[in-house]
C-alpha cells in the first residue's frame, strides 16, 4: 500500500512512508546513501520533490516521522507547536510555501511565523529550494540575541574564536586567543574545546579565559565546551560560567548517545541564568549540531539526515540560545562526501535554523579524507556571510591542532569584514576601535602597533 504517490511524465512513483518520501526528495549526499534511504535515481529524486511540493504543510502535524510515543523530541515539537502563528501558511502546500517565502514574506512575518513551523516543514521546503533560494529567504530573517555582546544585527558578522590546544596548555591557548583578537575575532564567544573533558580541566581553562577577558576588559563571553553536566557542577562550584555548551541531535536516542536530555538542558539554563553574568541580554546557551549524528549513533528511524538536523533545532530553540552552529563538514565523507555536499548542507542548516527562529551560525569545515579543500570553504563562508549568518568559527591558520580538522582562519573573518563591509558586534567593535585594531569602517588597520601592544602586555 503506497501512502504517497504521484506520476511524472507517465511514470508512477510511490513511497510507503512520509520519511521515505522526504529522504528520496533530499538533494544527494553520501549519508543518506549509507543509510540506504536516498533516491535510487536522479529522476526518482525529482519525482519525490514533485509529490512533496503538492503535500499540504498540515501533513507534518499529522503524519509524524518519528513516533510521538517513543521520542521526546517529537513530543517537544508537537506539544510546543503554535497554531496561531501557523495560521498564515496553514492552507499552503510545501510548494506554495516555497513561493511565498521567496516572494511576499517579510522580515516581520517570518519572525512571527517561526513558532508555527515544525522542523519537518522547514526541512521539506528546503528540499525544493536551490542554494540561491536558501540565501534569498535567509537574508530576510532577523534573529537578535545578546549576552555581553549583541549578535545578529544588520551589517554585522559575529565570530567564535576557537583557540584549542592538544594538551589544554594554558599558555598555548592564550597565545591563540591573543592572535585571534588581533584579527578582531571573538565577538560571539571565545570558546575552547578541551582535549580532556573533565571538570578540573574545564575549570582551569575557564579561569584563564575569565582572567584574560577581565584584564583587557573585552566585551564578549567565554565558554569551555564541556559536557552539560560538567557545566552544571562547575556553576555549583562557583566557576565563572558565561555560556553553557552542549551538542544536541534530532532524536531522543541520538541525544541519549550524547548523554543529554531535555531536562538537563533546562536545568543547565536555569543554573547559568542564576549567575546573572550577562550585561546586554540573557541568552546563556551555546549549542552545536551537525547532519549525520543520528545515523552515526544508529538512532535515525529511517529519516534523512537533513530532516533530523532540523529536528535538533527544536531542541535548541527550547532553551533560547545565544548561538547555535552546525559543524557542517566535521563528520566525514561518509555523510557529506565533497565540497558540493558540504556547501549545500551548510546553506540548508543555516536556512532551517533561521526559519525556526534560531541564532544560526556555522563551523565551515572539512576533514582530510573529504573531497574538499579551503577553496570550498571560501565559497561557503562567503555565501553564509551574504546570507546574514549569525556567526562563523575561526581557528589559527584554519588548522585545529586538537580536533584535527580544518575550519576557517582568523584571516577569513577579516576577509569577510574587509571585503564586504561587515562589522563585529557593536560592543566588541567599540573595543576593537579603542584598541586600535580596526578602523571606523571595521577594517583591520595595517601596521602592527595595536597587536604589539596587546601582545606585549600579555606576558605569554
Amino acid at each position: 500500500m503506497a501512502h504517497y504517490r504521484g506520476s511524472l511524465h507517465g511514470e508512477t512513483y510511490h513511497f510507503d512512508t512520509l520519511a521515505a518520501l522526504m529522504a528520496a526528495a533530499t538533494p544527494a549526499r553520501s549519508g543518506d546513501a549509507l543509510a540506504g534511504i536516498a533516491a535510487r535515481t536522479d529522476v526518482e529524486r525529482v519525482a519525490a520533490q514533485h509529490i512533496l511540493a503538492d503535500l499540504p504543510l498540515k501533513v507534518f502535524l499529522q503524519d509524524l516521522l518519528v513516533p510521538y510515543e517513543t521520542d521526546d523530541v517529537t513530543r517537544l515539537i508537537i506539544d510546543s507547536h503554535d497554531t496561531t502563528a501557523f495560521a498564515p501558511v496553514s492552507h499552503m502546500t510545501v510548494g506554495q510555501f516555497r513561493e511565498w517565502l521567496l516572494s511576499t514574506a517579510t522580515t516581520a512575518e517570518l519572525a512571527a511565523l517561526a513558532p508555527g513551523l515544525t522542523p519537518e516543514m522547514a526541512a521539506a521546503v528546503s528540499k525544493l529550494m536551490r542554494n540561491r533560494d536558501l540565501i534569498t529567504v535567509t537574508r530576510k530573517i532577523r534573529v537578535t540575541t545578546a549576552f555581553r555582546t549583541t549578535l545578529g544585527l544588520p551589517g554585522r558578522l559575529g565570530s567564535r574564536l576557537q583557540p584549542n590546544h592538544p594538551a589544554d596548555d594554558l599558555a598555548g591557548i592564550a597565545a591563540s586567543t591573543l592572535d585571534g583578537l588581533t584579527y578582531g575575532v571573538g565577538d560571539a564567544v571565545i570558546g575552547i574545546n578541551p582535549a580532556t573533558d573533565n571538570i578540573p580541566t574545564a575549570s582551569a581553562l575557564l579561569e584563564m579565559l575569565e582572567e584574560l577577558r577581565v584584564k583587557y576588559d573585552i566585551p564578549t563571553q567565554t565558554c569551555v565546551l564541556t559536557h552539560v553536566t560538567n557545566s552544571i557542577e562547575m556553576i555549583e562550584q562557583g566557576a565563572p560560567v558565561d555560556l553553557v555548551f552542549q551538542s544536541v541531535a534530532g532524536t531522543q536516542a541520538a541525544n541519549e548517545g550524547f548523554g543529554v536530555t531535555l531536562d538537563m538542558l533546562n536545568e543547565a539554563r536555569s543554573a547559568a541564568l542564576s549567575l546573572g553574568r550577562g550585561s546586554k541580554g540573557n541568552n546563556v546557551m551555546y549549542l552545536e549540531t551537525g547532519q549525520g549524528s543520528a545515523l552515526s549513533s544508529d538512532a535515525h528511524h529511517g529519516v534523512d539526515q537533513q530532516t533530523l538536523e532540523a529536528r535538533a533545532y527544536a531542541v535548541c530553540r527550547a532553551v533560547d540560545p545565544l548561538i547555535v552552529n552546525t559543524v557542517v563538514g566535521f563528520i566525514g565523507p561518509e555523510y557529506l562526501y565533497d565540497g558540493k555536499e558540504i556547501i549545500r548542507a551548510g546553506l540548508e542548516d543555516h536556512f532551517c535554523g533561521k526559519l525556526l527562529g534560531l541564532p544560526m551560525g556555522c563551523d565551515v569545515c572539512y576533514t582530510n579524507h573529504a573531497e574538499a579543500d579551503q577553496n570550498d570553504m571560501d565559497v561557503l563562508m562567503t555565501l553564509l556571510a551574504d546570507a546574514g549568518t549569525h556567526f562563523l568559527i575561526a581557528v589559527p591558520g584554519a588548522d585545529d591542532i586538537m580536533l584535527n580538522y580544518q575550519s576557517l582562519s582568523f584571516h577569513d573573518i577579516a576577509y569577510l569584514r574587509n571585503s564586504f563591509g561587515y562589522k563585529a558586534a557593536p560592543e566588541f567593535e567599540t573595543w576593537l576601535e579603542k584598541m586600535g585594531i580596526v578602523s571606523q569602517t571595521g577594517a583591520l588597520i595595517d601596521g602592527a602597533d595595536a597587536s604589539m601592544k596587546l601582545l606585549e602586555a600579555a606576558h605569554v
Partner: protein
Amino acid sequence: MSDVTRDAKSDPWARLRAATPARVGLGRAGAALPTSAGLEFQFAHARARDAVHSSVDWAGVAAGLAPLDLIHVHSAAPDRPTYLRRPDLGRQLADRDWPELVLDDAPDVVFVIGDGLSADAVTHHAASVVQACLPLLASLKIGPVVLAAQARVAIGDDIASRLGARLVVTLIGERPGLTVADSLGAYLTFAPKPGIKDSARNCISNIHGQGGLSYEHAAAKISWLVKEALVLGLTGTGLKENADLKSIGSS
C-alpha cells in the same frame, strides 16, 4: 641564548609561536595569508590527502615482516572512493577472498594490518611495530599476519574468527592531520567475531615518529594489554591501562 628566546624579546609574535604548535603569528597580506604561509598550509593538506589516497607499499610491508607467514586479503570496498563512502564495506571481506588453509592449532594472537585512512602510516610503521611486539609475546602462539587492503578496524574481527584466534591486534592508518599524516593506531579485541561492539576494544593511538609513541613503547603497551586480556578474558572498557605500564614502557 637560543634563537627562540632572543626572538621572543624583540618580537612578540615569536613568543606566541613558541607557546603553541598552532598556526599563530602568520602575518597577513591585506586580510590574506602571506604567500609562504599559504603554500605551507597547502603542502600540509596535500601530504594529508596523499596519505589518504595513495596505496600501501604492501611488498615493502611484507619484506619487513619476514619470516612470518602472510595472508593477503581485500575488503568488500573495491576502491578508495567507495571505501570513503561506505565504511560498512571496509569492515567486511570481499566475497570469496579467503584462502583455503589449515592451521595446525588455533593461534592466541593474530595481527591484522589494514590501510585505514593513512597508507603512509602502514607503509612506514606497521611492520616495525609487529616486529617489536614479537619478542615480548614469545610465550604465545602468533598466527599468520593478515594484510588487508581498503580495510576498517572491524575487518579484523571476521579475519581473526576465521583463524580461530583468541585475540586480534589490528594495526591501521589513522585519519591524517595537517601536522602528522602517518599516525598508526592499534586496536585489540578479545574473542573477535563479526558485529562485536567498538566498546569491546582497547585502542593505542598516535604511533608515529613526530613526537608520537615509539615502536618500542607501542609494543610494550600492546603486549601488556594482550597478556592482561588473555588472563582476564576481555578487552574494552573492562580492561584499563594499568599504572605498571609506565615502568614497562620506559624499560
